[in-house]
């Protein structure tokens, strides 16, 4: 078996700031990898580069599709990237409002990716959308409501339904639980964990929340100042941190 997504030697500068400095990362099918680190450590930049939303200055990102063909993400055309985003990938933003169409009903939001992929049967789109609303623990009866009426947690769950409806193989998540209160966070994490296990998704999760990483991730990548300082199985990294920065990060988690 080979890696789903493999990146090597990624460099990215914003002026004098090195957002990424020789970063290498890989993710295998069905695996959840958490990228943790403080604000400004380059974790979101890394996610954007891997998802083809930002060109790196150097390095390469290779993605293997379901047919086994390899795509170089940094050289891919806009059309090819959009095709990947539509069929193979999903992206969950921190702020659901960035991803959702607020003036379109919940059902329309979930159905958009289906329609973009060529689905033209209204009844079928409704059925699939209702099914996905149920999977993210939302009442399908609220399908025709505007996301404006939903709470932050519901908007986030709607975003997840919208992302997963086309059965992506790889999902990028950028702080999916950020900005939500603790009990809603817990439910959302539970939901994501269930979905990931059921669907066998590969997830690349960016978070500064160590607890979320522990709950969801199989592997953890610790970043600081644009470099990967430590990488390993979740339990190993969190219970026996080697790098001083990881030790600091782990010890600064508040015990409830």
């Amino acid at each position, binding site marked *: 078996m080979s890696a789903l997504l493999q990146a090597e030697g990624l460099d990215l500068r914003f002026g004098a700031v090195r957002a990424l400095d020789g970063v290498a990362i890989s993710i295998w099918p069905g695996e959840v990898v958490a990228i943790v680190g403080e604000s400004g450590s380059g974790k979101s930049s890394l996610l954007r580069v891997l998802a083809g939303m930002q060109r790196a200055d150097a390095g390469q990102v290779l993605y293997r599709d379901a047919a086994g063909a390899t795509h170089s993400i940094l050289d891919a055309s*806009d*059309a090819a990237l*959009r095709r990947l985003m*539509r069929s193979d990938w999903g992206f969950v933003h921190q702020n659901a409002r960035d991803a959702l*169409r607020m003036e*379109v*009903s919940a*059902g*329309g939001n979930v*159905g*958009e*990716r289906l*329609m*973009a*992929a060529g689905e*033209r*049967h*209204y*009844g*079928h*789109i*409704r059925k699939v959308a209702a099914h996905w609303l149920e999977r993210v623990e939302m009442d399908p009866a609220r*399908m*025709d409501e505007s996301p404006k009426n939903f709470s932050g947690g519901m908007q986030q769950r709607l975003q997840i339904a919208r992302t997963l409806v086309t059965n992506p193989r790889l999902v990028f998540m950028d702080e999916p639980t950020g900005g939500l209160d603790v009990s809603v966070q817990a439910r959302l994490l539970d939901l994501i964990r269930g979905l990931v296990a059921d669907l066998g998704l590969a997830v690349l999760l960016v978070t500064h929340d160590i607890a979320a990483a522990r709950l969801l991730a199989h592997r953890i990548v610790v970043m600081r100042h644009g470099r990967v300082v430590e990488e390993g199985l979740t339990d190993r990294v969190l219970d026996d941190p080697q790098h001083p920065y990881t030790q600091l990060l782990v010890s600064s988690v508040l015990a409830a």
Partner: protein
Amino acid sequence: MSETTPKPRPLAGYNFGYLDEATKRMIRRALLKAVCIPGHQVPFGAREMPLPYGWGTGGIQVTSAVLGPSDVLKVIDQGADDTTNAVSIRRFFSRVAGVATTERTAEATIIQTRHRIPETPLREGQILVYQVPMPEPLFKLEPRVAESTRLHALADYGLMQVKLYEDIARQGEVGTSYNHPVMVNHRYLMSPSPIPAFDNPKMHMNAGLQLFGAGREKRIYAVPPYTDVRSLDFEDHPFKPVRAPHACAICGSAESYLDEVITDDAGGRMHVCSDTDYCASRPPLEDAP
């Protein structure tokens, strides 16, 4: 009313068909490109025309670029030959180009139209020139021009379908009774200009050449003869051309597109054909007004 007017002499000192040579070439090049890529919007350097934006500046530029001395011109506005706009544009071309004009669809070689397709089917060799206020079918959904251009380039039209989905979810049917978006040649999403949805099916596999000119927005696009033009819909909610469920009060036609005319202040109204030439070509009802 429907006789062909005698051929006046062209205006001296002007290039044929009003436009200067460079402009005419530029527009004809844009037209050629538009015909080669059906449904694709080609930018062109629209000129100031001697009528206001919104009255057909795009249409008359396209018409004058394709007009030749032997052409016979018909101009309709909402189907009618006798409205101010249609009369003025027809008179304009007969004065500056000296071409023959007509009100008969069958006799015309070029038909400039605003918001209708004639009821009489076009034949090969005829050109239908549409006046287009807004060429971009996505403009209400995607405010950024750069982004909608990108969506066209990537044939990413999920957004338009979402709009139709929302219409059906909210009101049980598609809400656009005019300017219903079409897919041209299975590739480009195109605005048919604000023609009634009733006319959309006439664009499909039409024998005539259909040219679209948007003067203010500076875009030209085209549907060549016998091109596949499909109105967007869902498999289980097929596209329905809308027509008022009446017969024409003058000719009794139950097939043509109707205008509703208010006749008095007491709620009196009647339905008449919007295509005046079609209506006049049919025997009037005995009790016609």
